[in-house]
């Protein structure tokens, strides 16, 4: 057989094959064997410090996990945390019972949703970090055997386990090389890379990506979700640059590597944020060639998993935005676009050092985080529309008849209604934050037990301080985000009542409550009047002002409280589809929404109520006080793909983004209108009243078109999307 190509790049398997192999592996491995391994490790270490026991438990998983390799994949590793096809179910139950009281942190108590310090990992390598831990241990006062020593020992143990894990993958790659002539050169190189990474800092881009990805999978095997890769284009760039200069890699090779990374991330049904672009910590433009390549890779792979976020600022080069638009046009929804010119000052205003604020990234979907310097994020949801409903009913829940809020009188004026809404909201937030603080306090009380050794290694300044990431080790403590759900629905409801009751005198509050209680049954014309009142998302100052004022009250009320761990409560205007379940908690509302229907999503206008086009949406959403909700914000916009095709479409979308951000917008993400959405709109026209069909010199709302014409648009859409 002819020997394969001499260079390990770009001879590689197709991305699709890598993705499929990962999926097949996942399908074939559904037994959570890790629990049994962990229980075994915990049992073997009874009597030792919890930190050490936790490190050993993870090491047991890293030491036993299968090391499946798809020959030809450029990055090895697998984050799937179920390891065998089947196993002993009785033993599993015993293990789970044994582990229950030993459980670590969970999302609510800051277990995951963090971006580890991958720049430090690449800069120091595994051995460098080990040396740091050793130095810190040596620096402890003579004879100190307290928490700090125990903690640092657990870090050393965790790093040793990770090194073993690297070695196991090196061995697996070596064996695979012997068995696969087609890719034996690549696999031999990969085995050598992994061996080298055990004892030296990475030198090449492939080594760097490999090291980061294996560490990422180690966190996933520790049952952490939504772990972020952070600013990959920044920490990988020096390696890319060196490879390009020495000719080790070309642009196509680097793109292939990034594509394989995204194919790997797509294996797990887990959100793993990757952030590109933005500012450097010194405040210069950080966009580089790799930023563009990563966006292109995300576009090529086109599978969810790697959750791409693009940071942009006034000086962001157009070619980067053009790459973003190319990716957006595929309909993947990526990248989400974030406004640095707003987010960075918002973080600085919250006490973050400018250099750290400029280095922010996202964890989970859209939660702002300082990579490698902050404890993991947690968040919860708060229903804003319910506050308005309680204000109409003196604190009684319309759905259940239970008293949920304090008594407030039936509003006789607009100001009464507004004040009562605020009273109900503050009361709700008091209860909500007290519940969160209780949970946080009980975790804080056990902080030396609930440690995260491997994550602490990559978080400044856990090693220097000798403290866990959640116990004062991280430079920035964890924040708790409270997602204010239904800001659009709440503003629309307030605005409809102001318009129809207090301004026009069409109805009384009692009329309104009757309509709501009957879910508008028999009140079709009245409902139409309420629907015709100004709605958020149409560039109408009165209702947008209402949304902005409510968001400001919400955000600042939260910012005024502190968490037991020293972190902050941050408002977010985000929902992560929870607006659907939150909608089920609230009966019909005066914005015309029927009982149980979803609330408006995140900071976006209510479904179908933005009838004035994208520029109006941009102006409306830009009016919200995002600086008071620094946790993260989402605005969803949708376009028919034909609307943004070609250079003109790309230019227009870029102009829309830039202008929205100049006006004060925080975030934009884009869905393309697909055939499925059009079918839904045909079945449910009311919630899709915003869909516009734009053809030169012609425009019409999709839901108002004749059925045959709708079918025609549908066919064109399917044709365009190749579906």
């Amino acid at each position, binding site marked *: 057989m002819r020997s394969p190509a001499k260079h390990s790049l770009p001879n590689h398997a197709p991305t699709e094959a890598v993705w499929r192999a990962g999926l097949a592996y996942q399908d074939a491995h559904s037994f959570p064997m890790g629990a049994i391994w962990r229980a075994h490790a915990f049992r073997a270490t009874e009597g030792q410090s919890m930190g050490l026991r936790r490190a050993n438990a993870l090491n047991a998983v890293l030491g036993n996990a299968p090391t499946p390799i798809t020959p030809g994949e450029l990055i090895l590793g697998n984050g799937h945390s179920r390891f065998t096809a089947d196993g002993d179910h009785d033993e599993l139950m015993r293990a789970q019972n044994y582990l229950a009281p030993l459980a670590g942190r969970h999302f609510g108590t800051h277990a995951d949703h963090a971006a580890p310090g991958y720049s430090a990992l690449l800069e120091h390598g595994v051995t460098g970090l080990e040396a740091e831990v050793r130095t810190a241990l040596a620096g402890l006062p003579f004879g100190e055997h307290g928490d700090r020593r125990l903690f640092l020992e657990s870090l050393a143990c965790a790093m040793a386990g990770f090194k073993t894990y690297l070695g196991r993958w090196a061995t697996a790659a070596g064996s695979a090389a012997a068995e696969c002539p087609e890719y034996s050169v690549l696999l031999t190189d990969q085995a050598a890379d992994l061996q080298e990474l055990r004892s030296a800092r990475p030198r090449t881009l492939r080594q760097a990506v490999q090291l980061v990805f294996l560490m990422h999978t180690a966190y996933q095997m520790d049952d952490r979700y939504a772990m972020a890769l952070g600013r990959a284009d920044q920490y990988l760039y020096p390696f890319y640059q060196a490879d390009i200069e020495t000719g080790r890699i070309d642009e196509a090779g680097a793109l292939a590597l990034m594509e394989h990374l995204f194919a790997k991330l797509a294996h797990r049904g887990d959100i793993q944020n990757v952030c590109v672009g933005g500012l450097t910590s010194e405040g210069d433009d950080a966009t580089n060639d790799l930023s563009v390549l990563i966006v292109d890779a995300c576009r090529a792979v086109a599978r969810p998993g790697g959750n791409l976020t693009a940071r942009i600022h006034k000086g962001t080069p157009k070619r980067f935005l053009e790459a973003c638009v190319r990716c957006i046009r595929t309909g993947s929804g990526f990248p989400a676009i974030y406004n640095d010119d707003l987010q960075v000052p918002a973080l600085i205003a919250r006490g973050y050092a400018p250099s750290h604020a400029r280095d922010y990234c996202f964890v989970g979907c859209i939660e702002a985080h300082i990579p490698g310097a902050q404890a993991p994020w947690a968040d919860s949801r708060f229903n804003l529309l319910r506050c308005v409903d309680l204000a109409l009913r003196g604190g009684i829940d319309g759905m259940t008849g239970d008293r949920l809020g304090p008594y407030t009188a039936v509003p006789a004026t607009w100001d009464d209604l507004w004040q009562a809404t605020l009273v109900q909201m503050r009361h709700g937030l008091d209860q909500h934050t007290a519940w969160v603080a209780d949970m946080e306090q009980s975790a804080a009380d056990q902080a030396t037990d609930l440690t995260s050794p491997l994550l602490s290694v990559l978080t400044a300044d856990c090693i220097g301080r000798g403290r866990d990431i959640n116990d004062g080790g991280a430079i920035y403590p964890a924040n708790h985000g409270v997602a204010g759900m239904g800001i659009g629905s709440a503003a629309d409801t307030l605005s409809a009542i102001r318009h129809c009751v207090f301004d026009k005198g069409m109805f009384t509050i009692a009329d309104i409550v009757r309509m709501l209680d009957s879910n508008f049954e028999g009140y079709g*014309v009245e409902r139409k009047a309420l629907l015709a009142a100004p709605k958020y998302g149409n560039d109408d100052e009165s209702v947008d002002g209402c949304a902005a004022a409510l968001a400001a009250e919400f955000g600042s009320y939260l910012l005024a409280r502190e968490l037991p761990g020293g972190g902050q409560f941050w408002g977010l205007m985000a929902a992560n589809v929870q607006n659907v379940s939150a909608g089920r908690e609230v009966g019909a509302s005066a914005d015309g929404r029927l009982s149980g229907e979803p609330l408006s999503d995140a900071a976006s206008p209510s479904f179908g109520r933005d009838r004035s086009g994208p520029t109006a949406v941009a102006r409306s959403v830009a009016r919200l006080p995002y600086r008071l909700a620094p946790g993260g914000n989402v605005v969803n916009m949708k376009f028919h793909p034909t609307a943004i095709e070609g250079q003109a479409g790309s230019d227009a979308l870029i102009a829309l983004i830039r202008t929205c951000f100049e006006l004060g917008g925080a975030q934009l993400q884009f869905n393309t209108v697909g055939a499925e959405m059009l079918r839904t709109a045909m079945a449910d026209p009311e919630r899709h009243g915003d869909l516009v069909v734009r053809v030169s010199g012609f425009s019409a709302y999709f839901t108002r078109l004749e059925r045959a014409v709708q079918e*025609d648009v549908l066919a064109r859409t399917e044709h365009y999307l190749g579906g």
Partner: protein
Amino acid sequence: MLTVSTETLTGWVFNIQRFSLHDGPGIRTTVFLKGCPLHCIWCHNPEGWNSRPQIRLATTLCAHCGRCEAACEHGGHTVTADQHELHLDDCIRCGRCADACPAGALELVGGSMSPEEVLAVVRRDLPFYDQSGGGMTLSGGEPLAQYDFSVRLLEMARAEEIRTAMETTAIGEWGRIEALLPLVDLFMVDIKHTDTTRHKQLTGVPCDTILANIRRLVERRKPLILRVPFVPGMNVEPQFLAGLQDFLLSLDEPPPVELMLYHRLGLGKWESLGGESPMPLDIPAATKDDAAPWIEQLTTQGIQVRAQ
């Protein structure tokens, strides 16, 4: 300087569409004015023909409750469990049926607006125009049909440094168009046929004035895009292609040409306005492939042409 002064001047507007991307460069706001002297068989904006408001029914939204029938004193609606017939010959455009409709299926298309009211909407997207090189586009209907109103809108936009474009048939006295030259940054003029008999068959009016006005616009070196509706079964015929080529080549500098591919999206509008489509319903939408021979032939003659 041309001035139209009357404080009471108003126009009939049937839509103001923000974020228009196909009616001139950049992000634009397109103002659709009612009333058109041409009645093209394939027209996709038939609500632009009549200069006054009209009742329009979205049949897909109609709940067949019959309230419109009860509200109308002129017998405009007959509603049964599965039918909603419009009889709008005696319609006085009072809009009571639309007010009574709980489903929002009926609407009064077109409203009277002052120039200031229109500009208040146009002005809202100023930062988007600045960022994208966009501006205001007058369309219709035929903006020349509401000449004074159009002039006033253009003057106001010009005074506020908003770039302007006009989609027009260029029909009418040259003097009226000439007066607009300082106010319009870009003209987009339709050529629907070059044979005046055929033009009259297809649009109801001859094309001599239109072609002459286009010739003058070219002579005045006014930024101009010629738009050619490409409608199979109507004007897609060798005679027109030849005539179009001859006409373009007879110009000093032929302006860029956009072939506007026929689409069927406007067909349902006729019925929704209580009428019947003059366009046969079985003519399929035109594709870029259909237009390829035209593009090829015109391109060979050195004419800049594309289809959209």
